[in-house]
């Protein structure tokens, strides 16, 4: 972007300064507070669900994550389908996007959106339109981190 800025004509730069003055700023602090509370609330619900699985099913703290994540994604699917999650997202921002429910929402909203183009080309082809890059870079960074850990272990650092 920095190089592009230089390519602008003086007229463009002058206009952008003028425009900046009128541009409504994001209320960053307010958004952070909202995100903190809603994100925390979602995580508290997740914690309650994982305790539920520990109490009533054979899950230990180590592997209770799997059913909990599945449940949270299911809940976010319901909320997305009922049209609640996008409103929550507008209110909470990162608070509802960062937990796994946000990932579920990204997958499901795309699936709903492209239902009209059929199951194969529509739902199948577009379901991971938004979430695909999360999966790709998530897997890739996990690979890199695992590689570093293995190498460090081999050299005896860890």
């Amino acid at each position, binding site marked *: 972007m920095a190089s592009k800025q230089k390519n602008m004509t003086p007229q463009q730069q002058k206009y952008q300064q003028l425009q900046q003055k009128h541009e409504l700023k994001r209320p960053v602090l307010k958004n952070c507070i909202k995100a903190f509370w809603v994100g925390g609330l979602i995580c508290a619900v997740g914690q309650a669900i994982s305790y539920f699985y*520990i109490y009533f099913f054979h899950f230990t703290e180590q592997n209770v994550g799997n059913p909990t994540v599945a449940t949270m994604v299911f809940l976010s699917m319901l909320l997305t389908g009922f049209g609640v999650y996008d409103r929550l997202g507008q209110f909470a921002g990162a608070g509802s996007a960062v937990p796994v429910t946000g990932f579920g929402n990204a997958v499901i909203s795309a699936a709903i959106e492209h239902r009209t183009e059929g199951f194969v080309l529509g739902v199948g082809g577009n379901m991971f339109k938004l979430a695909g890059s999360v999966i790709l870079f998530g897997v890739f960074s996990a690979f890199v981190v695992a590689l570093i850990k293995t190498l460090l272990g081999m050299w005896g650092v860890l």
Partner: protein
Amino acid sequence: MVYIIRLMIIASMILMSSCSQGHTEEDSQLALMKATNPNPTVTEKNNGQDKVEEIEKKVSNFNEIYDAAIIKGKEATLVVYKVKHMQRFNMKKIEKDLNKTLEEDYPKENFTVSSDYKIFLEAVRLIERKNNGSYSDKQAEKRLNEILKMTSDMK
């Protein structure tokens, strides 16, 4: 927004009410929320009750640990504990230290050390059942071995 908040309240109420149904055991119900400090237990009568109490004291001496359940079986001894919340960052170190202390002091014993809530919960349940007589020694031993297996599955 009001709708979302209402939905969350309802969801949490359902979760809570489902917790309070059915089970009649007292301590184990709240085992995850408060310190229970159950009596250390042995599965076989007259086999090392003194020893487990000694172990319990040693474990309780750790500053980071505020709650511990110890069950000694025929071969293995299960030590489950909860660490203070702010000490959870040092979980690994605490487990290592505890293991070392126990191994040094009781080289003959075969310890299984865990801080998992699930294992703790099951241990408390086992102790309660043992104490109120619904488990015989044999049943208790069997259950202990199941719990130990659960622990080893995790690792």
